[in-house]
């Protein structure tokens, strides 16, 4: 059977992290020093292994033309989150990198240089406060996404539905109509890959409350009827309960799901606007019409309006250990403001005032209000702490997989009992963290 060395392996990795980790962080008080000439070489870590040898060097060439004497090299990292987290503790992590989500906001200062105050940068950049602590911004978004449903509108039209449903009940009725009128799987959860389930956590804007992130950690029971988790997780539960998802969730496959929705074998998935170009590409590859793929808001309205959260994708930062911070900062600002990367990726440009991509203009035209949710300030970092202490991975898939198991009758319990358990666990951790 499996062997115990797995553990020793984990232990060894952690030891390496510890042994070198102590050298990584220096004092946190000294102010950022970006003085010096913009020249010399910098290394940029990227998660876009697909672009590292194609599009990214093109941007680098333009940057090098603007600042002669500079040289930008890219270091593509396949398993970005895990590998870069380990690299962070070693002190060697390039000059410019995307902030891994494993770094808690109060640790940002240990690894990255502050780029300016939130108050100053907010007027220039969207999503400036998402990786900020104590009023200091540590990372700038390289592009934003909107959250909502990716649907195949041809399949929905076959079931007689052409406009986005306005309530969860209407959405469920729509899915049932799809199940009745077509062969398609009405809703695909991507249970096995897991991470697509985390988009049920990205819908916090639907209540239209800009302070949602601030108030969330203050609530000991977010799964109570009428509250946000009850609405989003509850919808997921009802979809599965009514057998409107894939028949065997344990064998889903993300890459395989793209051609499925593109050709109309799947009617809808809850993802982000970033997925639309990918699905359209899959449609083109499969010989289907790419215009069948459209983006709808989450089926919930507040005061008669859809609200969709827009948020920054990875935030890029200047490494604290960089030897060439002036050039690193120049690259970061140039990449965010002038490179056109966001537009090329059809994501929301981080610089305030630049035009939205076509996908989102259509989305806005359906009457959706795009909402940026400011990060918590008073309760900064508290939500992460509660997640860790309660082991309810709000931003992940583990507890949602259990939710699906219960809904399809594969685990004990029902909606009420599971939500009560979640409330209890969350509440216990919350009272510990917030006291």
């Amino acid at each position, binding site marked *: *059977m*499996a062997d115990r060395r*797995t553990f020793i392996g*984990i*232990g060894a990795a*952690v030891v390496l992290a*510890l042994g070198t980790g102590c050298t990584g962080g220096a004092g946190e008080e000294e102010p950022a020093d970006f003085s010096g000439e913009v020249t010399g070489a910098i290394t940029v870590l990227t998660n876009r292994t697909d672009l590292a040898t194609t599009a990214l060097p093109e941007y680098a060439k333009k940057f090098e033309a603007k600042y002669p004497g500079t040289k930008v090299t890219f270091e593509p990292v396949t398993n970005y989150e895990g590998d870069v987290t380990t690299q962070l503790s070693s002190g060697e992590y390039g000059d410019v990198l995307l902030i891994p989500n494993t770094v808690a906001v109060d640790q940002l200062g240990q690894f990255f240089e502050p780029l300016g105050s939130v108050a100053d940068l907010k007027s220039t950049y969207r999503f400036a406060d998402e990786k900020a602590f104590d009023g200091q911004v540590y990372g700038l978004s390289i592009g934003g996404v909107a959250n909502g449903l990716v649907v195949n509108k041809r399949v929905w039209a076959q079931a007689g539905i052409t406009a986005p449903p306005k309530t969860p009940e209407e959405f469920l009725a729509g899915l049932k109509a799809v199940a009745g009128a077509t062969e398609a799987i009405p809703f695909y959860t991507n249970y096995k890959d897991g991470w697509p389930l985390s988009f049920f956590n990205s819908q916090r804007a639907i209540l239209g409350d800009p302070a949602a992130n601030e108030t969330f950690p203050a609530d000991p029971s977010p799964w109570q009827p009428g509250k946000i988790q009850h609405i989003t997780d509850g919808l997921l539960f009802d979809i599965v309960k009514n057998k409107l998802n894939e028949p065997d969730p344990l064998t889903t496959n993300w890459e395989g799901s793209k051609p499925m929705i593109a050709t109309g074998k799947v009617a809808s998935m809850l993802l982000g606007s970033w997925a639309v170009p990918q699905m359209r590409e899959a449609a083109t590859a499969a010989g289907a019409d790419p215009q069948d793929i459209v983006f709808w808001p989450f089926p919930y309205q507040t005061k008669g309006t859809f609200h969709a959260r827009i948020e920054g994708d990875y935030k890029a930062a200047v490494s604290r250990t960089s030897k060439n911070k002036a050039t690193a900062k120049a690259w970061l600002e140039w990449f965010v403001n002038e490179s056109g990367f966001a537009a090329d990726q059809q994501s929301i440009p981080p610089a305030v005032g630049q035009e939205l991509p076509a996908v989102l203009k259509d989305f806005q035209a359906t009457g959706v209000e795009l909402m940026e949710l400011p990060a918590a300030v008073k309760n900064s970092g508290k939500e992460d702490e509660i997640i860790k202490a309660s*082991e309810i*991975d709000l931003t*992940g898939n583990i507890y949602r997989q259990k939710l699906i198991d219960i809904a399809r009758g594969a685990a004990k319990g029902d909606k009420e009992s599971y939500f009560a358990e979640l409330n209890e666990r969350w509440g216990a951790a919350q009272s510990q963290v917030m006291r």
Partner: protein
Amino acid sequence: MRRPAAVTTPPVTPRRSRRWTPWLYLLPALALLITFTYVPVGNMVFYSFHTWDGLDVTMEPAGVDNYVRVLTDERYWRVFLISGYYFVASFAQIAIALYFAVILSFNTRFRNLFKGILFFPYLLNGVAVGFVFLYLFQPDGTLDTVLRWVGLGEHTRYWLGDPDIANISLAGTSVWRFTGLSFVLFLGAIQSIPGEIYEAAEIDGANRWHQVRHIIVPGIRRIISLSFILAISGSLSVFEIPFIMTGGANGTRTFVVQAYETAFQFRQIGLASAMAVVLLLVVLLITWVQRRIVPDEEVTLS
């Protein structure tokens, strides 16, 4: 680098050089063992008394809090029960391995080919095995197709999706993978039994079954007992197969998968280390009990 004393001054201090020479030969092995086994384990024990996210420069001492949580919170110790599936499966594994080891220790046709076939799965990487079986268990996958061919079509089901079957499917995968290892252990032990004993038995009129019953099984008792220890510790620490095939979902989360999630999804290195230490202690305890119940006597075939 120091040169061995024996080379520089052999006649003067022969005794001291003799004392140090064995250690010099042991040094590389000891250095590797200490660096890669004992230091990490020591560190793990150290972490288990702290609260740490694996990244922060400071660690908060936590006393025995982590241990209290592992042992009192149902969510942590309940996953041990999943090991039961793998433990039961390991009996099947030992039985199958013993059966083939006995048969192939006699003069069977194509025996080397069969040995290769039986041992092959163990050579495959655990991740590859996981993916192979993932496709096998898919709805309308290989297993369903084969069942339909032989007219058992009505018995197909969601091998991983059905919570009553999922753990059995995974344990079956584990049996397939590790039978080869038990088989080779048994075969080696059987072949170390001297041939004269069989000849003598044959002269005394013993048939094949008698030989198995009275020569082979007593002769390899130590290896069988070793296999059980491996089976127990193995079934308590199952990781790759459920991790690759289901990610621990659908009630297939084992203790090690849970520890992995605690460490790397929830970044609670301290708590996860405490889980690892608990697992180590449990395995040691069970091994000790097992050795007390079945003492390891010297085997004599006279």
